[in-house]
């Protein structure tokens, strides 16, 4: 099982690189995984255009739990940039929403994982991320695009659906993380 293990190689020492080569490769694979999920889930029919399962955050969560906050942030930024290029939405309003939502959600997840890891498991962290993601987007839409208070009519739908999607994403990430046995290394 030795080769299945992913080791924590994040280094704060400036003389050694931030990530080892093997970690770097695995992070690239995670970006690829997130990119595929990101693109594929745009083809899933949804009841409302802005209700997305957010499955791409599986990659973020795995990176966060396997390699730490910086890795998660790098994975999320790379995934969103590449996803925007693939979908052809680079630098349009949807991209700005996606980018800011993704980064804020990842920062919150990293913060809660760092300081409240005894309070919240991966499920709680993921639900926090999903809720923060949708709320950031909602605030940005209200501020930049629609500029109306009525957009907050969507808030109950957003909160309740992101509890569900956050749970699903956490479940998938949990299955992946427990398969590659990094939970025991990390905690």
């Amino acid at each position, binding site marked *: 099982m030795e080769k299945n293990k992913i080791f924590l190689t994040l280094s704060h020492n400036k003389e050694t690189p931030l990530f080892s080569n093997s970690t770097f490769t695995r992070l690239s694979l995670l970006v690829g995984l997130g990119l595929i999920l990101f693109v594929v889930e745009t083809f899933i029919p949804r009841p409302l*255009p802005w209700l997305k399962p957010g499955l791409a955050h599986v990659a973020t969560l795995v990176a966060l739990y396997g390699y730490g906050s910086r890795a998660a942030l790098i994975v999320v930024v790379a995934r969103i940039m590449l996803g925007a290029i693939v979908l052809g939405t680079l630098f349009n309003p949807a991209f700005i929403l996606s980018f800011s939502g993704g980064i804020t959600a990842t920062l919150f997840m990293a913060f809660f994982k760092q300081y409240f890891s005894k309070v919240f498991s991966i499920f*709680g962290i993921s*639900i926090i991320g999903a809720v923060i993601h949708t709320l950031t987007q909602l605030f940005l839409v209200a501020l930049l695009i629609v500029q*109306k208070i*009525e957009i907050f009519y969507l*808030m109950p739908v957003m909160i309740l659906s992101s509890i569900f999607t956050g749970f699903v994403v956490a479940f998938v990430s949990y299955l992946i993380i427990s398969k590659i046995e990094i939970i025991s290394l990390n905690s």
Partner: protein
Amino acid sequence: MRSNQNNFKSVIKLLTTGDKLLVAMLIILGITSIFAINKKRLPGETCSVEVSGEKTHHLKLSENQNLCVEGSMGKTSIQIKDNKVCVTHSDCPEKICVRTGWISNVGQIIVCVPNKVVIKIDGEKQDFFNVITQ
């Protein structure tokens, strides 16, 4: 390898107390925001009346008045009072339009299908259905 990984009950056991409290708080927040939002409906300022698909009247809700339109089955009496609209009488058999009662908020609508009368409260449509977030 953990056994029973796909079992839902074993997943529930993984949740910490903090997780459960978080989910409970978010559900409460979501449900209370439904009630908070329902109170804040936008009152409309004008209403339009359509008969057989054609717009026949455009009325201000601030002026109290009674109106009678001729639909395909008979007369429909519309009353405007205190910024609200209702159908007081209709010659249609089911009287669903009468039972709809008073409407006053943007987007609300009274429809009389047999008489082909539609009363809408006008106002700016909220176009967030056009906003695609990704």
